[in-house]
């Protein structure tokens, strides 16, 4: 997932399709025009996915928080790349098509909350050389996957189905882990 220098190259690796050239480009850019509360976004335009990182908040973000944002956006890009491939359909990607059928425009956040928190936690642990507990990385993976903007526009925000399944104690622990880390976490990138 990350190389020996802790570079998160796996995002780029995911855009390789065996020896076939990818149908899509992936761009990573810094943006000063994202909303203040938006850490990053992944936008598809034609054959390019652009991951924009909010440059305004960069100095205040922790190293692990930023790594988590990159992994989170990388998963968005990867899932959407599957969905956007020429000839992509419910037979080739049944999971994605089923999530889209049920959750419409919120499909990838819901799918990520259900199935990719473990991937995020694993990536964070590697990036951080396992300096924290497994619980810490699992809790950190929840950021951006508990409450999400309702892309379908019915409400401003909704809770993901995965978050709803947690007990109040678990929710409190996760929130506290994330808040404490934002306040006290290392803000120097490795």
């Amino acid at each position, binding site marked *: 997932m990350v190389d020996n220098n802790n570079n998160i190259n796996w995002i780029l690796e995911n855009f390789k399709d065996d020896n076939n050239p990818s149908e899509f480009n992936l761009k990573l850019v810094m*943006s000063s*025009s*994202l*909303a*203040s*509360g*938006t*850490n*990053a*976004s992944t*936008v*598809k*335009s*034609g054959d390019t996915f652009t991951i924009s990182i909010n440059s*305004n*908040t960069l100095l*205040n*973000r922790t190293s692990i928080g930023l790594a988590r*944002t990159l992994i*989170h*956006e990388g998963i*968005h890009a990867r899932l*959407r790349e599957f*969905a*956007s*491939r020429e000839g*992509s359909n419910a037979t080739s990607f049944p999971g*994605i*098509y089923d999530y*889209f059928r049920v959750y*419409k*425009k919120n*499909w990838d956040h819901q799918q990520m909350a259900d199935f990719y928190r473990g991937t995020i936690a694993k990536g964070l642990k590697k990036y951080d050389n396992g300096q924290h507990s497994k619980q810490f990385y699992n809790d950190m993976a929840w*950021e*951006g996957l508990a*409450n*999400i*903007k309702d*892309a379908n526009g019915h*409400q*401003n*925000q*909704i*809770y993901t189905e995965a978050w*709803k399944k947690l007990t109040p104690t678990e929710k409190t622990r996760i*929130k506290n882990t994330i*808040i404490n880390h*934002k*306040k006290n976490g290392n803000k120097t990138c490795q």
Partner: protein
Amino acid sequence: MKNYLLIYILIYSFNSYSQSKDTIYFLINRKDSLIKKQIATKTNKYEGYRIIDEKTLVINTKRSSDLGGNDIQYETFDSYSFSFNRKNDTIISNSYLKTLNLIISRKKFINIKKKGYYFDTSGFLYFFIEKTNHKNKYILRKVYPVSFE
């Protein structure tokens, strides 16, 4: 005279000590249409506030209705989201309210951010205060900054 001065200093010091500089109290103006409140419904339990900054334009993204479709980007006002759990609300009196160092205008609240403290990463504790239907009673509500990805 010296005694009065000492008592004043002690009261002032105690008040400053009990109100940490890391705690922000914001009195919600119900008439301010740029403070949006989301209340839980049967199907969506999320509750929170959205404070809109009409002086700052940002780029937002709207997803396509097609699974593999292109996103649409557009300009909109910046906004700051805060979630809350009403089970943690407390009721305070008018006299207690007067002891708090309140922010009463949205613009001043937004200025926290403009001073370089991003709501989400500042480490501040935030409490929003709302008037109740009972005279002299207010809701003191702990809120949490929300970030999106």
